[in-house]
């Protein structure tokens, strides 16, 4: 029986009647196909182990030439029996990242230097604008008077990322993300950053109270 005949069964539930039409062939075929696909999927990844596990994909992201056949450290995962968690190596200190580094991952190109030569602004208007912006943003980490806090002291003779106007502009523009300083270049324009940087240079040597101990290298 494969055509829709719309014949009523003798079912009657509170007035609800039922036909017993056949399952649409496309529906039943779709069901079969997904079941076959499921079996093949499990075979491919967990029985034949032809497929890459998550972690294998990850290794390939770092090294496209990597394959498990060539990797002497590769241990085949077993399905359920002898199970181990996928991203976990007994020697937790050995990670794909370290392997990738040892194998020499392509060196990231050096940061493109800002070739533009800046000249610190000195006019009162720019400096006061720079100060105004400093007090809105930089103050949270570097203090009201540049004495430092979360971030380093800006008034002493020690600098972590360079002391020239070009250095300061670069630091402010790119930030120091690993220490929590934002890349302000994405928030402010170049002109504003130059004003902030120029202001920062004006507070050098002001010896504010509660200074943060020196960090970085001495620049006289």
């Amino acid at each position, binding site marked *: 029986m494969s055509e829709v005949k719309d014949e009523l069964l003798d079912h009657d539930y509170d007035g609800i009647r*039922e036909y017993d039409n056949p399952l649409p062939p496309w529906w039943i075929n779709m069901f079969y196909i997904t079941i076959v696909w499921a079996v093949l999927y499990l075979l491919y990844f967990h029985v034949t182990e032809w497929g890459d596990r998550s972690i294998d994909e990850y290794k390939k992201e770092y090294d496209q030439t990597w394959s498990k056949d060539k990797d002497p450290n590769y241990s085949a995962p077993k399905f359920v029996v002898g199970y181990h*968690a996928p991203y976990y190596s007994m020697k937790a200190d050995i990670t794909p990242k370290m392997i990738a580094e040892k194998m020499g991952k392509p060196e990231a190109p050096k940061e493109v230097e800002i070739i533009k030569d800046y000249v610190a602004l000195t006019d009162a208007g720019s400096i006061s604008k720079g100060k105004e912006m400093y007090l809105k943003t930089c103050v949270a980490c570097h203090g009201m008077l540049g004495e430092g*806090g979360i971030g380093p002291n800006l008034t002493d003779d020690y600098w972590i990322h360079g002391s020239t106007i070009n250095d300061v502009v670069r630091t402010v523009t790119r930030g120091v993300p690993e220490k929590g300083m934002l890349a302000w270049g994405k928030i402010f324009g170049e002109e504003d950053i130059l004003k902030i940087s120029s202001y920062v240079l004006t507070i050098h040597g002001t010896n504010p109270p509660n200074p943060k101990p020196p960090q970085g290298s001495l620049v006289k």
Partner: protein
Amino acid sequence: MEHASKVQDSKADGNLETFHYDNTIVRDFTIATLVWGGVGMLVGLIIAIQLYAPSLNFGIPYLTFSRLRPLHTNAVIFAFVGNGIFLGVYYSLQRLCKARMFSDLLSSIHFWGWQLIIVLAAVTLPLGMTTGKEYAELEWPIDVLIAVIWILFGINLLGTILKRRERHMYVAIWFYIATWVTVTVLHVVNSLAIPISLFKSYSIYAGVQDALVQWWYGHNAVAFFLTTPYLGLMYYFMPKAADRPVYSYRLSIIHFWALIFLYIWAGPHHLLYSALPDWAQSLGTVFSIMLIAPSWGGLLNGLLTLRGAWDRVREDPVLKFMVVAVTAYGMATFEGPMLSIKSVNALSHFTDWTIAHVHIGALGWNGFLTFGIIYWLIPKLYNTSLYSKKMANAHFWISFLGIVFYAVPLYWAGITQGLMWKQFTPDGMLQYFNFLETVTQIIPMYILRSIGGTLFLTGTSIMFYNIYKTAKQGKFLADEEAQAPALAKVYHATQKGQYHRWLERKPVQFYVATLIAILIGGALEIIPTFAIESNVPTIASVKPYTPLELQGRDIYVREGCYTCHSQLIRPFRSETERYGEYSKAGEYVYDHPFQWGSKRTGPDLHRIGGKYPNSWHYSHMIDPSVLSPGTVMPSYVWLAVKTLDASTTSAKIKAMMKLGVPYPEGYEDQALADLQEQAERIAKDLNDAGFETTADKELNALIAYLQRLGTDIKVK
């Protein structure tokens, strides 16, 4: 096949009996559905707006996104849809069984008990009393209450089935039975916890195992709370409203059993690329794919039942709502399996794509089916006709537009942000290394989404008025008279060889068969993951949390940080470059409960430890926008003011030891001193950085926890 004129089984049965359907309980659950639906949607709208206007919490902890989000999800799932299930079950079950509910008292206890649970949830969740497990956030005393009320409901359900005057159980009842059986199992297993106090407990499972149990629960809450009971409702109310026979009886048999057997396996698709074993992840994927056809079986039987009634769909708001509901169901149940494919999930997971997906289900399937049922039902209960068809049509179009405005921007936002996270520059650097940039990019989409939510809620409000006026103009029929012959004791089957027909006559056997069907998948996934626990070598350098860190972790749970931050770095270059080494299963062995999260509104925190100075965290918690201008994270300034309740420390350590965390013997007596010492150190560090604070503040504990996160195996 036998023709309709075939003699009804029931004719051979006993004398005609007169009895009354209980409509009061149906009406009460309908009111509760509407009221809690409104509340759930309103809270959803508030938090949707908070996503771009975080100050909308007015600086009040109880109104902060991370505490309201669990309230929204719980309210929509268990209050709106929950009451919706009960209104539909209590109406249809009585009529399908040709019997009044087994016990009016149980009905009444069920109703008031469920409302009490909801009120308790609405109070405790904003107060921060939470287990930190999604959609299972309620603390253990409420969990116990839920179990009791649910079992009473089960007794009432089974009692009514047993005293039925209809020989066979209709497909709707099969779905009700599967719902009750499975939700019982899910709720009990996932909620097992060791109490510390009346308001605080620790999940007995840790880390990877907790994650597996939680998503076995979470996924099947979707399956057996949002799907199977509503399929049951569809099977009753849709043929009723359309006045058409169900398309195919045999399809209903096959898709019912396939659905409940397969659904239970699919939970691990919430944990793809996680630290869950690969084989379990793969089971999640393949069972999700196999679910497409069984899910669509329900869609087919719904839509094809409407053959011959499509002209009426254009006119009748009830059918309109139902058609969209079933279509949304079909879309969501196709999208779900697609999201379970690893390469799709790699992009979609942790983004708003998931949020869009679940709202197709919640707003479209559950919402619209509920609305359709209520529009059909209320005029019947009040023996009148709908007050305004025009208003119902307006509701339909406004809310339909609401779904579109909700979902489309969020799909856009999810894909955009997912791609931005993965974007590298040609130099091999992350293009958007500042997470915040990927957030500010999608804020316009958040704004559009909240407009969609507003539209949906507007439609619902129109419905409130329409239903109120309908009830007002009619006369409520509390006890509806009906007649049916009693069932004869002995039954002679008129058709031989129909095994399923036999099962439909045998409720107890049906319960057992259902239980077996749903236990297989869960058991085959969960038991191996636990049994081989000893085979999972713990990482030697991973140590239990210090007492202060443990307290800090509980604050992390209390504030609901997991609603926006994950603790799971997937093995993608784009994630390890951004966050650090990917997460290992062995790192979570002391995490009761796990806190992997499911959505990244903010960055992952699994390797946040040691990344910033204490002072950064201190300043950031007090006002995140100072360090991250444009951030959508609200201030948690109260943490810097509130004193940490350290008196619980020894009880917490003891509970952890009971759960197998290897603190030295007798450490519970030493813990408080250690806690204070560590707090002093952090406070001194903060003082040195210029922050005036003392060691007894909650924020110190949270900082201690954050600084510890992911550092045990940190790779330099």
